[in-house]
């Protein structure tokens, strides 16, 4: 028999500390749909394979009493299945319809992998991103512009800045919301369950069930019991908590995999915040003793948190993957929002923080008149961090049309709200105009 305190501890984590399964994401291969007229075949494949995804997610939620916030789909990068004569936007519309039909809230994979060079279809897809994101609700796009093995494709980096500006412009009536569904990566992973960057890699099977857990509130509560104690005590506490959270993720992933008759892929160990109070990564860092996230000490605190989460989680799952680290999306974390409003958390500090955690500059609203070259330069910096450190980094910036520093943008729901923060005003135009490729770093030669 389990003891009462353990049972109520679990119930309290779910009820009071907002522990949840952040997402069950079903990866679906579209390789069999490739070629002309792919859009219809893609719709059929996605709706057939994911037919029961939402129903099964809800069943598990009810039986185990654990909220599963999102049910989502990731597909093979669309650039790989695009037919010669096909308009890529037709595929985006088919994916959006498939998302509606299956009841998922996002579908990712409107993507191209161009870290070394862009093929004709990659370029066609990239150029279609602004229109695709403006004309769909649930489709997410991503482009991998760099990798440790290939270096940084600076032509693609230049294009992404332009694509961001155009996407924001086409969704100006919604404060540039289209850009919240567009992410550019260095070292993108093939089994990421989190949006907007999820896609189903070519090394994957027909389907896979990938699960992302959450629980910043649980980690914070656990640390509250150890105020003033040394860092090694904190690290141990985080490890134990991460272990518990991940075991739950593994259980749900196995159950979903069984019921959907789709192989279990990975559990992603990322600590993912939401805009609700009590679900903030920034508040964990502040619990460690920082007055406000973004001040000196923040990078060290985040490094320890991220490392301890991984150490605790890795033993709890038979297969860990995805991004696996702490997320620091500005608009989706109440502590980050407050710190940015206070001016403590700046773009430069966020960049430093991305050196030691899993994602990158995520959900950051910048002034609407930010030049494309500046957005590209921010991406180049971030890609450089990823490439040289052999880790994933990403950029999801929203240049909010018609708004400037200090004004607010509301995306609603999980995407949250954010103050617009400044970027450096100096021009990067000549730097970005060079194009070409930053060669792979020496540490890519590991064989």
């Amino acid at each position, binding site marked *: 028999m389990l003891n009462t305190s353990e049972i109520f501890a679990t119930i309290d984590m779910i009820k009071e500390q907002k522990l949840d399964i952040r997402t069950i994401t079903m990866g679906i291969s579209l390789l069999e749909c490739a070629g002309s007229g792919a859009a219809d075949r893609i719709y059929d494949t996605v709706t057939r394979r994911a037919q029961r995804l939402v129903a099964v997610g809800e069943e598990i939620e*009810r*039986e185990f009493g654990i909220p599963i916030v999102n049910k989502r789909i990731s597909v093979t990068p669309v650039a790989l299945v695009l037919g010669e004569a096909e308009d890529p936007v037709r595929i985006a519309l088919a994916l959006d319809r498939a998302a509606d039909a299956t009841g998922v809230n996002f579908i990712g994979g409107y993507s191209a992998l161009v870290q070394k060079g862009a093929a004709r279809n990659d370029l066609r897809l990239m150029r279609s991103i602004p229109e695709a994101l403006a004309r769909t609700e649930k489709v997410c796009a991503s482009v991998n512009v760099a990798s440790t093995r290939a270096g940084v494709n600076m032509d693609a980096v230049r294009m992404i800045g332009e694509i961001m500006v155009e996407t924001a412009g086409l969704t100006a009536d919604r404060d540039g919301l289209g850009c919240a569904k567009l992410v550019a990566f260095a070292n993108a992973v093939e089994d990421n369950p989190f949006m907007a960057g999820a896609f189903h890699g070519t090394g994957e099977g027909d389907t896979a069930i990938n699960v992302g857990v959450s629980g910043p509130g649980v980690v914070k509560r656990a640390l509250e019991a150890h105020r003033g104690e040394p860092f090694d005590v904190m690290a141990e506490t985080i490890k134990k908590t991460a272990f518990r959270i991940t075991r739950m993720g593994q259980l749900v992933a196995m159950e979903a995999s069984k019921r959907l008759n789709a192989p279990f892929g990975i559990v992603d160990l990322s600590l993912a915040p939401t805009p609700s109070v009590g679900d903030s990564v920034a508040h964990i860092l502040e619990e460690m003793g920082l007055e406000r996230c973004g001040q000196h000490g923040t990078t060290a605190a985040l490094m320890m948190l991220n490392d301890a989460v991984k150490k605790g989680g890795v033993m709890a799952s038979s297969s860990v993957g995805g991004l696996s680290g702490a997320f620091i999306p500005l608009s989706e974390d109440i502590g980050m929002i407050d710190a940015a409003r206070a001016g403590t958390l700046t773009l430069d500090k966020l960049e430093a923080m991305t050196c030691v955690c899993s994602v990158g500059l995520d959900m950051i609203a910048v002034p609407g008149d930010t030049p494309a070259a500046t957005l590209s330069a921010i991406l180049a910096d971030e890609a450089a961090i990823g490439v040289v450190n052999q880790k994933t980094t990403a950029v999801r910036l929203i240049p909010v049309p018609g708004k400037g520093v200090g004004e607010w943008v509301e995306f609603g729901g999980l995407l949250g709200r954010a103050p617009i923060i400044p970027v450096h005003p100096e021009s990067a135009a000549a730097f970005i105009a060079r194009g070409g490729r930053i060669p792979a770093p020496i540490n890519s030669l590991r064989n």
Partner: protein
Amino acid sequence: MKAIISVLGADKPGIIAEISGCLYRFNVNILDITQTILSGYFTMVMMVDLSGMTCGFDEMVGNLNGLGEKLGLEIRMQRNEIFDAMHRL
């Protein structure tokens, strides 16, 4: 299939009678039961066996929720694997 039923709320006569009566009606077998008063709150945990249950899981949860509303208690039923996963190696 086993599940854990947890009950939390203000104490009053008849809580166990009502809940066990409801379980009995649908042939749910109680395997273990722990009950105490914690800081004035009635706190109970039951482990039950659902293998002979004559209604669906969701219906049983609905019945218990209805009972919870009537008695002013929070009653949850969750598959026991979630607690095992989090607290047992």
